[in-house]
C-alpha cells in the first residue's frame, strides 16, 4: 500500500538473550492523533532486548505485514510486540505474520493502545503517550518471558447446528449440506419460513416471499443430510470448539431433550417487529397500523384496498418509527429494510388502484443501492414525499367526523404546515432484537448495546463471535434485508466449512501446567477443576499432580489453590505477568 510510512530506527544490539521487534501503529490517526507514537518508540528503544522498533501507519496492512516479516527474518528476531488495536481484532493476523517469518506465533504479544488508550484519553496527549509507553513496556516484558508453543490439534465433527428456520437458516442449511456437512435445523415455531413466509411480492424479482420459502423448504427436504426439528429449542451446550454437544428440547416445556453432536453452530434467530408504544404517533387509534399489518393487507388484496370494510382512498406513511431514535429512547440504529419495503408497498398499492393518494412523511429516505429506482417508481406512480424535522415529528389525530388527520411541517416547502386527512396511517416500524434470554444464556453470546448479537469485527470477521465455532447470520446480528441475511448465511456456511472440512482444528495451547519439581503432592488442586483435568501421577520415587492438556480449558482457576505456586498457565505465566506489572509500574504517568 502506498500510504505506508515506516520510520526505520537503527537496530540496537540486544543486551539480554532476546531479540525483540516492536511496532507501534498510527492506525491512520486513531492512535497517533492522541498518542505521540514517535515518542513511544524513542522511550522504549533503549530498554534492552529491543532490536527493531518502528512506527507504522497501519500495522495490519499487507505492506506492513510484509515489512514486519522481512524484519523478523533479516534480524533473526525471536520475539514480536505489536502495539495497535484490541487483541480481539488482529491477534491471528500477527500470529500469521510471525509464523510466515519462521517465528513461533506464541512469541508475539499484542498491546492494545487504541481501545484501551488513545480512544479513552483523547483529552490528554501527554497522559495517553506515557500510558502507551507503559503498555508497550509491559508487552516487551511479557515477550522476554515467552516460550515457543505448539498448537493442540483436535478432531472436529462434520455436522453443523442451525438455530432458526427463516430464510437465513434455511439457505445456510442447504449450503452446508452441499459442501458435504451434516446439518440439524432447530426451529422454535411449528413450521419453517420465518418472516419471509408471510410476505407477498418482493423487490426486485417480483417473486412471492411465500414461494421463495416453499422452494427453500423443498430443497431442504430433498437433502438427506439435513434433519429438521420444529417446535424445538436449544436448552444446553457442552463441549468445546469443534466438538459441541447441544441439548435440544423438542415439543415444548417439560418435553424430553435430544443430544446433537456438532462441530459448529449457526445462529439465525432473526428479529421482532417493533411495536409502537400506546399513543406513539397515534398508535392505538383506529386506522393507525404498523408496516407488517399494512403489508399483510396489501399482499392479500386483489383490487382496491379496504380496511375494516371501509375503502382506503388515502394513506399516510410515517417513517423511522422505533428506529434512529436520538432522544433517550433505545433503538438508535437504522433498520435498513423499512424505507425500501414501504416504497415498494406503495408502488404495489398504486398498481391495485392508481387513484389512492399516498403521502410519505420521512426524516431521511434511504432506498439505498439497488433499491433506489423504487423511489423514482413510487414518485412516478403519484406518491408524494414530505420531509419532517426530527425535532418536530408529525402528529396524528382522530377528528369528530371519525377521520384521521396527520399534521406535518414539510421541510421541502419552507416548513409549510400541512393537515392531511387520510383513511389509514401506516407507522413504518423497524426491527428490534428478539427476546431470547435462554439461548443467550446457553450459548454465552455477547450482545451489543442495541441488543443484537455482536460479531467479532464488522468488516473482517462479520459472522464470527467470540465463542469459537458459533457463527451468526441474518437479522439476529442487526437489522438487514433478506438478501443481506442470505449473504451472511452463506458466509456462515463458508466459515463452518473452513472450520470443519479439514476434520481437525488447532487450539491455542494456552493450558495450565504443573512444575513437577515444585509440586509436593498435597492434593489441594485436585478438587479445583470442574473439567477433571488434574490427576495425581507418580514416578518411581514420588507423586505429583499433572494436568491433561486436552481436558484443560485454560482458565487458570487451579492456580491460586497451589500453596507451592507450582502451577502456571501458558501464555499467562507468573514470569510473564509479573514482568508486565513491573515494567508498567516503572513508567511514570
Amino acid at each position: 500500500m502506498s500510504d505506508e510510512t515506516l520510520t526505520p530506527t537503527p537496530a540496537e544490539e540486544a543486551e539480554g538473550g532476546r531479540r525483540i521487534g516492536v511496532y507501534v501503529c498510527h492506525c491512520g490517526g486513531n492512535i497517533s492523533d492522541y498518542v505521540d507514537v514517535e515518542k513511544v518508540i524513542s522511550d522504549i528503544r533503549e530498554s534492552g532486548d529491543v532490536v527493531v522498533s518502528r512506527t507504522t501507519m497501519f500495522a495490519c496492512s499487507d505492506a506492513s505485514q510484509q515489512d514486519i516479516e522481512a524484519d523478523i527474518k533479516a534480524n533473526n528476531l525471536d520475539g514480536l510486540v505489536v502495539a495497535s488495536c484490541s487483541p480481539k481484532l488482529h491477534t491471528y493476523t500477527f500470529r500469521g505474520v510471525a509464523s510466515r517469518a519462521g517465528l513461533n506465533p506464541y512469541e508475539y504479544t499484542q498491546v492494545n493502545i487504541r481501545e484501551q488508550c488513545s480512544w479513552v484519553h483523547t483529552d490528554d496527549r501527554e497522559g495517553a503517550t506515557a500510558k502507551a509507553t507503559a503498555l508497550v513496556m509491559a508487552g516487551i516484558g511479557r515477550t522476554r518471558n515467552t516460550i515457543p508453543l505448539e498448537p493442540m490439534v483436535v478432531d472436529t465433527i462434520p455436522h453443523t447446528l442451525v438455530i432458526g428456520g427463516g430464510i437465513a437458516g434455511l439457505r445456510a442449511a442447504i449450503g452446508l449440506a452441499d459442501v458435504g456437512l451434516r446439518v440439524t435445523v432447530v426451529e422454535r415455531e411449528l413450521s419453517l419460513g420465518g418472516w419471509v413466509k408471510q410476505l407477498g411480492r418482493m423487490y426486485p424479482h417480483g417473486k412471492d416471499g411465500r414461494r421463495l420459502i416453499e422452494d427453500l423448504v423443498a430443497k431442504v427436504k430433498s437433502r438427506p443430510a439435513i434433519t429438521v426439528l420444529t417446535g424445538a429449542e436449544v436448552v444446553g451446550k457442552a463441549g468445546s470448539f469443534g466438538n459441541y454437544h447441544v441439548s435440544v428440547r423438542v415439543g415444548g416445556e417439560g418435553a424430553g431433550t435430544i443430544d446433537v453432536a456438532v462441530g459448529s453452530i449457526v445462529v439465525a434467530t432473526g428479529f421482532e417487529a417493533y411495536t409502537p408504544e400506546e399513543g406513539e404517533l397515534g398508535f392505538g387509534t383506529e386506522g393507525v397500523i404498523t408496516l407488517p399489518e399494512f403489508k399483510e393487507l396489501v399482499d392479500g388484496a386483489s383490487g382496491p384496498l379496504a380496511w375494516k370494510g371501509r375503502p382506503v382512498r388515502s394513506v399516510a406513511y410515517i417513517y423511522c418509527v422505533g428506529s434512529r431514535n436520538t432522544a433517550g429512547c433505545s433503538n438508535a440504529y437504522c433498520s435498513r429494510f423499512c424505507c425500501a419495503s414501504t416504497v415498494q408497498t406503495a408502488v404495489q398499492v398504486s398498481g391495485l388502484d392508481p387513484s389512492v393518494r399516498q403521502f410519505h412523511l420521512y426524516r431521511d429516505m434511504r432506498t439505498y443501492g439497488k433499491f433506489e429506482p423504487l423511489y423514482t417508481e413510487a414518485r412516478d406512480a403519484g406518491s408524494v414525499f414530505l420531509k419532517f424535522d426530527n425535532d418536530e415529528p408529525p402528529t396524528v389525530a382522530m377528528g369528530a367526523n371519525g377521520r384521521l388527520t396527520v399534521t406535518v411541517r414539510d421541510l421541502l416547502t419552507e416548513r409549510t404546515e400541512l393537515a392531511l386527512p387520510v383513511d389509514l396511517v401506516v407507522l413504518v416500524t423497524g426491527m428490534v432484537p428478539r427476546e431470547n434470554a435462554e439461548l443467550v444464556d446457553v450459548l454465552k453470546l455477547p450482545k451489543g448495546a442495541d441488543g443484537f448479537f455482536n460479531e467479532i469485527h464488522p468488516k473482517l470477521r462479520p459472522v464470527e463471535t467470540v465463542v469459537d465455532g458459533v457463527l451468526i447470520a441474518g437479522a439476529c446480528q442487526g437489522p438487514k434485508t433478506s438478501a443481506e441475511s442470505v449473504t451472511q448465511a452463506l458466509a456462515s456456511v463458508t466459515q463452518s466449512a473452513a472450520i470443519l472440512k479439514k476434520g481437525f482444528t488447532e487450539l491455542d495451547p494456552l493450558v495450565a501446567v504443573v512444575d513437577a519439581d515444585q509440586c509436593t503432592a498435597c492434593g489441594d488442586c485436585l478438587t479445583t477443576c470442574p473439567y477433571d483435568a488434574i490427576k495425581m501421577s507418580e514416578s518411581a520415587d514420588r507423586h505429583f499432580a499433572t494436568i491433561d492438556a486436552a481436558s484443560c480449558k485454560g482458565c487458570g482457576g487451579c492456580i491460586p489453590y497451589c500453596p507451592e505456586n507450582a502451577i502456571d498457565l501458558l501464555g499467562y505465566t507468573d514470569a510473564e505477568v509479573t514482568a508486565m506489572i513491573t515494567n508498567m509500574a516503572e513508567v511514570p504517568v
Partner: protein
Amino acid sequence: MTAPAAAEPGAPAGEFVPRILVFSTNNISDPGVDLAGSSHMHYSPGVNVISLPCTSGIRPSWITHALEAGYDGVFIATDGEECAYLHDCAKRSNRVVQIAQKTVKERGMDPGRIRVAAICSVCAEPFTKHMTTFSAALKAMGPAKA
C-alpha cells in the same frame, strides 16, 4: 450509541494521578473495557489493563506486587455469573481478593486499594464509572508507596 462520559481535563502537572492496575478477562470484561474505548468514553490514563482468561486464575501475589511496585490500586473486573469456564468464578475471584487484601493489610496498606466488580461485555459505562470513583477514592488515600 451511549452518550460518552463527560471529558475530564488532563491533570495539571505535578498532581497525583492514582495508578490503577485492572485485571480483565479476554472474553467478557475486556470487551466491555474495549467498548468504553470504541464509545470514546473517558477515564484516567493512570489505568492500565492486563487481560487474562479468567479472574479466578489471578495469583494474589500479582496484586500485592502491583501495589508494591508503584500501583495505588488494583481492580479485578470479574465475569461474575457470566464466566464461561467456572460456575463459581465469582466465589473464587473473591477468595483471591480476600487473600490479597489480608496480605496488604499485614503490610500496613489499606485493603480498600483492592476492589472487585463484575464487568460484562457491554459494561462500558459501569467500567468507566468504576474507574472514576476508584481513582477519586485512591486520590483521597494518597499514593500506596510512601
